[in-house]
């Protein structure tokens, strides 16, 4: 358990970074790609243009950071949501593995796709 305490600042840093980047950037992505464009308020840009934009090194870093840090933000916060909300403290080890493990898997998958655009 001493080990867990030592790791907490690390997970908290990822939680904080993910909370910040997701707060700044996810709402506009959802509003634009998921709502405004499908409702016809704006036209969806061409595939070629979007690929060109996404291939820019800064875009790749941005997309990867947004995906990965958002997942780690979820992992850390949801871990404590399960403890406090559902009183599952006794399942701590499984919850920790599930939360951070999912975020790590998502990070790897995200990295592969971001690099293969």
């Amino acid at each position, binding site marked *: 358990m001493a080990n867990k305490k030592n790791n907490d600042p690390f997970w908290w840093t990822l939680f904080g970074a993910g909370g910040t980047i*997701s707060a700044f950037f996810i709402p506009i992505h959802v509003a634009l790609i998921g709502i405004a464009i499908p409702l016809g308020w704006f036209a969806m840009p061409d595939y070629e243009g979007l690929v060109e934009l996404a291939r820019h090194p800064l875009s790749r870093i941005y997309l990867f950071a947004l995906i990965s840090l958002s997942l780690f933000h979820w992992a850390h916060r949801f871990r404590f949501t399960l403890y406090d909300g559902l009183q599952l403290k006794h399942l701590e080890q499984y919850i920790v593995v599930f939360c951070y493990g999912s975020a790590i898997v998502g990070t790897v998958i995200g990295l592969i796709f971001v690099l293969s655009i």
Partner: protein
Amino acid sequence: MAKTDDINTSTNPRYQRYRPERYSPRMSIFWWVHKKPFVKFIVRELTSLFVAAYAVLLIFQVRALSQGAEAWEALVAWFSTPFSIGLHVIIFLFVVFHAITWFNLAPTAMVLRIGKKRIPGGVIITINFLMWIALSLAIATLILAR
């Protein structure tokens, strides 16, 4: 009283004296529904689910972009379904709630100083909200200009 204890421990070795400090009742998992601040707290905690859900949707978008025009068009077609639009509206409400609560807590999480003077919390919050607007406009412009 000591006598009573002796009797109880001798007849039942597992008998323990009444210890009110050890009493911890199990709370209902819905302990938070009765008070507004608690509901706000739980909703704020649950926003992380929607942040993660959109991270997964971003992975699908990046995957479709990497697979070619056909895969991208298929995803774009799915985005136009009522289910997808409804899902995005729900995600939007939660991530906006996340953003607002996150920025409002920013002065608590970081203390900024100019010289020895602490920058007031209200200023930090205002800067965060202005940056949010500016960055959103920048991203929207970058995407729509394509």
